[in-house]
């Protein structure tokens, strides 16, 4: 036993040494600006370095212990580290607390991993487990819907929560729209935000310059975005995989650059302001109505409250998102939806079966783009100000991440991923710059533990035998 323990300690010490050597320049020194005459100087941050070295030492030791099958010491070590991280111990920065606690949490996870692994394996590899997963996903979907519907009436519904709710639902809708293109049809689209921009600018321009209302523009914006989807679709029909991704990426950038530079039409980088919000049967959400209009508060005979507008927006986006979902679910059960999925699986086989890949791909692009157009109009109406900055590549990347992490093609998965990817960074704003680190960590963890996405199960669009007998098969 003793030689092994010494070997473990040696190993951990070596790792700590490497950390110290690497970290001394990255963490140990900090350049500071001491004024214009002398320029830069530096400061020592050796406490930070020491903490890092200790955490790495303990972490490496813990991993060795776990590899040797000593589960409880690892868990104990992890718990001690978490406790140290959250204790009021004096450390130079808040981040170090997080660092220590996170290291400990990872060790605890590593300690319980063999059990969790076995449980997951049992759950996903038996037919009974699959049935549980199926029913679980369905049940989870209804539960999430119930929460979404009652949320504005709960005491939780302050302005911050409702804002976040609207934001998450917008991304859920975009995720569901992109899911048609990427998840069902398997066409990797990195420029999805372009259609979102088309929808947003369609509403912004038509409302501010032609006085059209939100509900009139909504279908127009959808159709316009769908047209752009087909326009993008034609040149990329013959492309697959990486090549398709690059061209769609370029398309997204082209739309953004056109918006940015066509100043006469779009007002360029200055953006478009004072876009009217959506109305409820012609009534506006404001304290005083413009001439000839009514406020919602007057129409309903209730006292004015600035939260009403937010709650209304929340329900508008909820309904729009649900329409997207219902439409997609319905399409999946129709021949065109099945052809989308078949195209994802094997395009050559599709051709041999007499399916026209051109039309099938174009419908997927058009339908996906249409929902982005709807979401874009909503975004413009909610923000009341849009500029090209809202439609950068990172938006496309986030929407794609939502689809991929949710599990390609899974509708409930998209909701979970949107809550995780949009909600968490908002809640973790206190972490400051490190929140993107947490974001990245969450993505890595999902990909490690659930490589096929949060919900990787695929329910057939039609069954010959009812579900009960499928469980035994």
């Amino acid at each position: 036993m003793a030689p092994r323990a010494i070997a473990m300690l040696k190993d951990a010490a070596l790792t700590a040494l490497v950390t110290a050597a690497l970290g001394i320049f990255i963490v140990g020194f900090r350049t500071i600006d001491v004024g214009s005459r002398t320029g830069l100087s530096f400061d020592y941050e050796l406490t930070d370095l020491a903490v890092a070295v200790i955490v790495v030492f303990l972490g490496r030791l813990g991993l060795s212990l776990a590899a040797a099958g000593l589960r409880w010491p690892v868990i104990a070590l992890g718990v001690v580290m978490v406790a140290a991280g959250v204790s009021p111990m004096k450390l130079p920065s808040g981040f170090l607390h997080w660092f220590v606690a996170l290291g400990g949490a990872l060790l605890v996870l590593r300690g319980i991993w063999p059990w969790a692994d076995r449980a997951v394996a049992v759950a996903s590899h038996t037919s009974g487990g699959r049935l549980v997963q199926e029913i679980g996903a369905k049940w989870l979907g209804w539960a999430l819907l119930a929460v979404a519907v009652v949320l504005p009436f709960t005491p939780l519904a302050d302005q911050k929560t409702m804002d976040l709710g609207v934001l998450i639902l917008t991304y859920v809708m975009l995720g569901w729209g992109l899911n048609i293109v990427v998840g069902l049809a398997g066409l990797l689209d990195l420029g999805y935000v372009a259609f979102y921009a088309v929808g947003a600018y369609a509403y912004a321009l038509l409302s501010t310059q032609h006085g059209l209302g939100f509900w009139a523009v909504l279908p127009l914006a959808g159709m316009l975005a769908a047209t752009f989807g087909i326009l993008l679709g034609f040149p990329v029909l013959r492309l697959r995989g990486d090549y398709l991704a690059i061209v769609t990426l370029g398309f997204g950038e082209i739309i953004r650059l056109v918006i940015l530079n066509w100043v006469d039409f779009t007002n360029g980088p200055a953006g478009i302001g004072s876009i009217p919000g959506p109305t409820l049967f012609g009534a506006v959400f404001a304290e005083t109505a413009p001439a000839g209009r009514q406020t919602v508060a007057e129409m309903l005979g209730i006292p004015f409250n600035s939260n009403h507008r937010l709650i209304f927006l929340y329900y508008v986006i909820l309904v729009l998102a649900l329409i997207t979902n219902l439409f997609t679910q319905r399409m999946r059960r129709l021949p065109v939806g099945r052809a989308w999925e078949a195209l994802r699986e094997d395009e050559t086989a599709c051709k041999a079966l007499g399916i026209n890949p051109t039309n099938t791909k174009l419908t997927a692009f058009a339908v996906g783009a249409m929902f982005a157009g709807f979401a874009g109009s909503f975004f413009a109406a909610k923000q009341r100000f849009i500029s090209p900055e809202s439609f950068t590549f990172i938006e496309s990347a986030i929407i794609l991440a939502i689809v991929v992490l949710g599990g390609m093609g899974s509708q409930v998965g998209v909701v979970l991923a949107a809550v995780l990817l949009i909600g968490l960074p908002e809640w973790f704003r206190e972490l400051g710059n490190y929140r993107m680190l947490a974001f990245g960590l969450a993505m890595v963890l999902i990909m490690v533990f659930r490589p096929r996405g949060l919900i990787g199960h695929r329910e057939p669009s039609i069954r010959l035998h009812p579900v009960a007998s499928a469980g035994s098969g």
Partner: protein
Amino acid sequence: MAAPLIEVEHLTMRFGGLVAVDDVSFIGRPREITAIIGPNGAGKTTVFNCITGFYRPTVGRLLLHGDRDYLLERMLGHEIGQRARVARTFQNIRLFPAMSVLENLLIAQHNKLMRASGYSIFGLLGLAGYKTAENAAVELASHWLKRIGLLADADRPAGELPYGAQRRLEIARAMCTEPRLLCLDEPAAGLNPRESAELNQLLVSIRDQDGVGVLLIEHDMSVVMNISNHVVVLDYGRKIAEGPPADIQRDPAVIRAYLGTDDSDSSPHQGQRSLNEGDGRA
């Protein structure tokens, strides 16, 4: 003898300097199995790819007699399946692995269902017409699942099926397109003798009951010699012999060029064995 179903005339396919198929002509008839055999690299699959529109032939005419005459060499890949009703399977199985067995068979009936769903518009509205068409499609799919013995597996992902079942499913999927001509690219590859015998029965029933013309590429001589009505032999892209299986077995040119072996690893030009040997295995 029935009128021809497909007439392949002077088919030539060149890839740059390589002549993969060189002036090949033959005829396939309805209710007959026409086998195309030949050593590896003889150009058999290239002939199939030309017939099914994956390649456009350099020279030649491919005439299919259906409700009217179709010139396949002028049609786009998917139109050949849709209008001329030529279905095919692939040497390396190409199912839709993540989709269920039943879904695979419904996708084969895509064009019929698309029309019934009013190009999705009636279907989205949930009109009854589409429901009836879908039920009929499921009925046809069940019929084929019964025939290939996979009815109980209808809701499983196709990719989970054992190899032999995937081969049968691919044939059933091709048959669900209700073809006039069925092109099978090595359907018996990787099957054990019992599965091979079952495949023979299935192909014979497709020929006799469904009245479909079959083009068959196959190395397994127990399949070729037992069920085909007509055999075309290719070597280095050229047709070297043609005739009923019994004649092909005695043809000196065929014996010289290529002899069916049941060992796939023996080099085709050295494995000098009698075709009767493979025949006896069935």
